[in-house]
């Protein structure tokens, strides 16, 4: 039975060479500006669309003191007219002009609708043009006319556990020599401007401030204090839906909050690609449609078939290489030696399903199955 019993443990992807495909969609239908087969760079505009402005309701009948169905009589503009903020759009006069009420446009926009049911007039903001970039360097694999372009490239690919800040690109540059080294402000200098810095186990608050000041594009590091990140962002994080933070650079944590050494595997992938340009995105959504932050380093080499590692069907088996993802053994890597079916009591006295892991130093540790991720099931 123990052979069959398993724990589903999703792991984060970390691959030195894989095929990355990105669907770059327009927010609403628009125009795609690239062709299938075309080479694109990080900043290439692949398409643009026009976003409808927000509508403003002007309560004309109330403001003029007339019935809703009478509003049209007093309008000085008609649907489709462009107006500027402050332009008079409705006017009511009585007693030969002695009594006058006027309504001004609240924004620059277009008169969209005069509603005789409610007596309201809708003024819509002017449309905004939104451009979408390729985000990664690669080839346009496919085009969905008016909607999206599919970009593909062989790349080194790493997922983080949480990130802050959106899409950026820059040259990968190591500021530490080991994955367990702390990235402090002394390790950051002007030469990192515009680059993506790789740190080790922890980034200090002062280092974050300095990075911001110098103008780095991104930081990839094992851990940080949540309070430090919140200080930089300027507000408190409630739920793990991130990516829109506006701090001038993108921060990706590969392990979590606290001082946590970056996994060797991830560190080595980043090290091997030092000097190459990478696309990064801190967008994270832990709930409903999990999104993790990512580092994509496009490679020139011809593609070697290796799928991005999605661990969905992996089962923990005797012999699986796993990594512990919760204190007190956070980051420990070892081989599964036992998967007992029955429940075991851990330090908290909770009876849980556990896994026994042999570490490289020969020690055998017992951890809840929920607290591991699979590195390899081979």
């Amino acid at each position, binding site marked *: 039975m123990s052979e069959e019993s398993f724990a*589903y443990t999703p792991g984060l992807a970390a691959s030195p060479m894989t095929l990355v495909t990105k669907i770059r969609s327009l927010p609403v239908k628009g125009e795609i500006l690239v062709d299938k087969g075309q080479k694109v760079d990080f900043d290439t505009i692949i398409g643009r669309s026009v976003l409808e402005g927000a*509508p403003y309701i002007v309560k004309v009948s109330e403001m003029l003191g007339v019935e809703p169905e009478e509003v049209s009589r007093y309008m000085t503009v008609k649907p489709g007219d462009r107006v500027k903020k402050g332009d008079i759009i409705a006017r009511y006069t009585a007693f030969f002009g002695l009594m006058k009420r006027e309504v001004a446009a609240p924004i620059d926009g277009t008169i969209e609708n005069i509603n005789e049911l409610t007596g309201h007039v809708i003024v819509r903001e002017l449309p905004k043009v939104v451009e979408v970039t390729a985000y990664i360097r690669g080839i346009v694999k496919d085009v969905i006319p008016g909607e999206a372009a599919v970009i593909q490239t062989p790349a080194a690919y790493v997922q983080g556990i949480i990130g802050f800040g959106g899409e950026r690109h820059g040259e990968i540059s190591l500021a530490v020599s080991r994955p367990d080294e702390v990235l402090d402000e002394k390790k950051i200098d002007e030469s990192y401007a515009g680059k993506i810095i790789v740190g080790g186990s922890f980034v200090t608050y002062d280092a974050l401030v300095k990075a911001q000041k110098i103008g780095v594009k991104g930081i990839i590091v094992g851990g940080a204090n*949540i309070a430090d990140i919140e200080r930089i962002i300027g507000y408190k*994080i*409630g739920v793990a839906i991130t990516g829109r933070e506006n701090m001038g650079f993108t921060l990706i944590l590969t392990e979590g909050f606290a001082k946590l050494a970056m996994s060797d595997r991830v560190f080595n992938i980043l090290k091997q690609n030092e000097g190459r340009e990478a696309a990064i995105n801190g967008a994270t959504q*832990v709930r409903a*449609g999990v999104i993790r932050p990512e580092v994509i380093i496009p490679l020139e080499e011809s593609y070697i078939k290796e799928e991005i590692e999605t661990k969905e069907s992996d089962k923990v088996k005797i012999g699986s290489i796993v990594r512990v993802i*919760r204190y007190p*053994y956070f980051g420990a890597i070892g081989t599964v030696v036992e998967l007992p079916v029955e429940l075991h009591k851990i330090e908290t006295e*909770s009876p849980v399903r556990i896994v026994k892991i042999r570490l490289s130093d020969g020690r055998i540790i017992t951890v809840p199955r929920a607290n591991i991720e699979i590195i390899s099931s081979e």
Partner: protein
Amino acid sequence: MTLSSEPRFILATDVGSTTTKARFFGKINNEWRFLASGEAPTTVEKPVEDVTKGVRNAVREVEELTGHKILDDSSEELKFIMPYRGGREGIDIYVSTSSAGGGLQMLVAGVVKTITAESAQRAALGAGAIIMDVLSVDDGREPFEKINIVRFLRPDIVLIAGGTDGGDVTHVKEIAEIIAMAKPKPRFGASYKLPIVYAGNKDAREDIKKIFPRDYFDLRIVDNIRPQIEVENVEPARNMILELFMEHVMAHAPGYEKLMKLVSTDIMPTPAAEGLMIRTFAETRKVNVLGVGLGGATTNIYSYFDGRFLRTVSANLGMSYSIGNVLKEAGIENIKRWIPLDLDDDVIRNIIYNKMIRPTTIPMTLTDLIVEHAVAREAIRMGFNHHKYLARELKGVKKERTISDIFEEVREEETYIDMRRIDYIIGTGGLLSRAPRRSQSMMILIDAFQPVGFTYIMQDSVFMIPHLGVLSKLYRDIAIEIFERECLVPLGTVVAGRGSGDIGDKIADITIEYNDGRKESFTLNFGEIKRIDVSQDTEVTVTVSPTKYFDFGAGFGKRISRKIRGGVVGLVFDGRGRPVISLKERDKQINLLKSWFKSMRLYPENFEEMTTQ
């Protein structure tokens, strides 16, 4: 599907936002028993995107543990062996609840915030929804602000109320117009028409139809939720929401169409099923009950008080996905007041936020456990405040409040829930059910709800209240039988007084009389907890003579006597006052907490050494 008149084996699943939980029940020697549980991560997300995979994994665990064959392995798609074939093979009934993918998310709107918008909230909450926002004409936001908010929400269903029948139609049309103009996008794809439930002034129906064009909206019209100012009629709106939940929301979630074919009755939103079971229990026993479902993403609070049932959900207070938000809303000081350890604030914060980003991990050290338990108290406390905000008498005119007020203490006189008259508190949810010691969940519930007088505390043994709730739609008696005998763990009675004083001051003389004639008397001092071992089967008479500064249910200084039972934890005499005393000096607070934890035998004797390693 035909129902068996005498089922033998029943399988129930709850497809939660994090975990899919299977519960297996059987009739053994003429009594209904809970036989086994199985759990597996929910597979609603990419790359799997098929909930039936998670259900299969959870049921597979039940099979492993019981040796009872449930899955039909001849089929590639999830299929159960139905009906029961004798021996250890097959089931008669399969039911399920779901809160996967964030549950049922709704936008509600009304004309007046404290009248129709409040009624609309109660209707949506009763149907198991998470409320994304509440719009009303008087919510203090400009129309363009409302439009901007609505534009970027992706609700599953919108509920619009407003106006009494025969009354003014202008305002309800105005609020409808705002929603129509903003065109909120549904969560599931462009081909999906956004369902709108209109439960406002019936005279505005024709105009409402014009405001919501058919090519974009799926408008459903039901009876007015407030036909008259003093009448609230939430049932038609609630039933329509549940119908739309099945028709639209469930049908669009990955894999649900397969699951819907397998169930013996409609899949219910988890909180709606949980509420149904608590309500059924309260009605059957004719008691006042408070319940809490402390989940990973949300905290649901249920009350049944003097025949009135109410459910509320705090969408962003939970123990995994939303745990960071509990800290954010409560503040670090409120969390720390329940932690008797000298931990750096950053350490506490990091423990909490690491749980948020790895929501399926479980605490392995006592420090982590104690921190999570502290957060749980605050999540329930704030959820209960939110609940009390809606547990108010129907009124035409009320004091203005903003939505941020819901996290502040609600004054007692504003809610109809009288803590002195609550008979039972029932706790459920992963953290409570999995608490290693029952005294921990009892203490969390006492600290969070702070009951007054004599209150019996129970908890879900293994998370199964939603499972039984959905089952009660088919077999009420079986559900009640399992609920009372197998599901609820009797923790014990808490006896507590309202009032405040100085540490060490006497607050009451207490006498316990046992059935065998034994008598035990003691003094309860301010700031202390006394726990006495009394089992569930033992009934004792407790007499409390409080000082004039304390009220144990009969009034300040008034003597009160009650027959009460114990439980697996026993009787808890809580002399910490209401609200529970909290000292400003950290050292003193830590010592106070330690004394409470010791009285309750909350953690291992040597927990201090274990947590300083």
